[in-house]
């Protein structure tokens, strides 16, 4: 076995990551071809309940799920069915209560808070609202992710952040503050922020819901293109059915259950 996937990833210098052809193959690629690598995410028998007014209210039931490296997976379902809850569990943002959840080689069930923080550093997050720091420029916002990992000098980080902004088409807006950017531009900055470290997994919750559909499409195009280039897996919650043709798989949920996975 040797190294864990995470250390493998860390060893591969970002930018020099060369995705295997199988990953670039796209939606109809045979899942068996990923056998060589471990899944980026493994979920088994996952239940989850919120405590509300003293009572436990179960919102996830017996979830089973694998996400393979490089896969682009959409998560859909009616409002309140538990998509965000599942995403935040996979992202190490909530504590696993029962079942098995392994993300990038780390088992999250019963891990101490410090380990969750460490796992989160290797995940790219894209939020519904961009959640950029108002007091930082576009480039500085992207740098915030780079700072989480040792080894780069200030100059190298600035260089990499600039590059990441170039890749999302914002090379000319590096020094702009979020207040002076359009919604689509802000969401592109947050894509740059999520991808600049070349994470193996990106979690996105309705990243386009605050954008008009044209801008939303442009943003998704950029996200998917970059993810494919880097070979990173995406789990994205979306209600937008028109982007389903870009995905490798679509998982549908209802009332806390997965009802289809194809």
């Amino acid at each position, binding site marked *: 076995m040797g190294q864990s996937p995470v250390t493998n990833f860390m060893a591969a210098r970002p930018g020099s990551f060369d995705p295997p052809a199988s990953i670039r193959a796209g939606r109809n690629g045979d899942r068996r071809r990923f056998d060589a690598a471990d899944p980026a995410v493994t979920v088994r028998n996952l239940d989850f309940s919120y405590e509300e007014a003293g009572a436990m209210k179960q919102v996830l039931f017996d979830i089973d799920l694998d996400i393979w490296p490089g896969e682009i997976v959409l998560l859909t379902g009616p409002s309140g069915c538990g998509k965000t809850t599942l995403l935040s569990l996979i992202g190490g943002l909530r504590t696993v209560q029962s079942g098995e959840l392994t993300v990038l080689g780390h088992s999250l069930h019963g891990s101490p808070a410090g380990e969750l923080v460490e796992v989160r*550093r290797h995940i790219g997050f894209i939020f*519904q609202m961009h959640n950029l*720091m*108002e*007091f930082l420029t576009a480039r500085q916002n992207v740098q915030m992710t780079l*700072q989480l990992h040792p080894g780069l000098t200030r100059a190298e980080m600035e260089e990499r952040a600039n590059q990441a902004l170039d890749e999302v088409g914002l090379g000319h807006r590096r020094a702009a503050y979020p207040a002076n950017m359009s919604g689509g531009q802000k969401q592109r900055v947050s894509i740059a922020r999520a991808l600049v470290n070349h994470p193996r997994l990106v979690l996105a919750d309705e990243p386009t819901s605050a954008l008009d559909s044209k801008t939303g499409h442009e943003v998704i195009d950029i996200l998917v293109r970059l993810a494919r280039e880097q070979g990173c897996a995406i789990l994205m919650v979306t209600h937008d059915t028109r982007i389903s043709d870009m995905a490798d798989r679509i998982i549908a949920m209802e009332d806390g259950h997965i009802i289809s996975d194809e």
Partner: protein
Amino acid sequence: MTFLFRDLPIAWLSLSHGRTKLIAAVIGVVFADLLMWMQLGFMTAAIQGATFIHNLLVGDLVVVNPQSEILMQAKPFPRVYLARALSHPDVATISLLRVGGVAWKNPPGLGTASGEKRNLTIYSIEPHSPAIAAPGVEEYATQLTAADTVLFDRLSRPEFAPVIAKYESGEPVEAEINGRQVRVVGSTAIGASFQVDGNLITSDLNFQRFTNRPPGSADAGIIRLRPEADPAQVKAELQKSLGKDLLVLTKSEYIARDRSYLSRRSPVNFIFGLGTAVGFLVGFAIVYQVLFTDVSNNLPQFATLKAIGYSDGYLQQVVLQEAIILSIFGFLPGTILASGLYTAARAATRLPMSLTWDRGLLVFGLTVVMCSLSGLLAIRKLRQADPADVF
């Protein structure tokens, strides 16, 4: 430490992005620092001001009544008690000092205080051997042998400035002390304080005329030693020969004794300590308000930082750094303003106000503590930044 140079200075970027926020916080700290500087300055001045005269005493040793707690309220002792000290071979001279309060009636037509009765402190010296080395004393000592003559302190409170001006213009200045007509024959320089509006110096005979104190007593005996004498040794020997009825002190011990009495027994420490505390609390409240608002407004962003992998400790450091930045940014202008106010206060009150390093260190320390406490309290709000809420 390398992260200092590698990482973005989030604290500074966050503070400086909102100009009004930064300005509000800095003004709060400046105000607090100004208040602390002034109150602590007055506290010291009140005590130092009361011991101006001590520094002007001519001798090496001071003899007082042990029951006497402070020169201003000295308990007299009979002069003859000192006779034995004169026989000590190392004692060169002994000068006697007496202190009292008199009602001084300003001559009419002289400024705001004209015609008013004011209490001034009066010191009595022996013209042939003055106990006080204040400016002018030596020069005018012989004139003080004339009846009803005084030297007037030109460092008295500003409302007495016309008296000095008139004297300096060469005109005779006539005034009343306890109902007696007196003449100002010279000026001296001692200094006003909280307790004292101004000072007079006169001869021991005139002093008896003004105050009706019995002759033959003294409030302090000022002993000058021969140059080769060892003050500590002579002090011990004198104490032994003078017995328990008198207390022998070196000049610096005497100053320290009176200052310590003032710090313990007068309300100045409490009053100005309270003023300093008020400044501290005001600054604390303003800085807390600013930092708390900053954290509250940025809660989703802080939650995002936690979500992408920043630790609680990192974010707490950011808030603390903001606090430290504010303390530095407030202290510097606060100190510059304080130096201006010190000058103004010196001019208006004649109090010995000056910026000292130790007080600067104290004010800066208090500022850092004040801001850090605000920061620590504001940090508690960070707990509400829950990374689970970011999606």
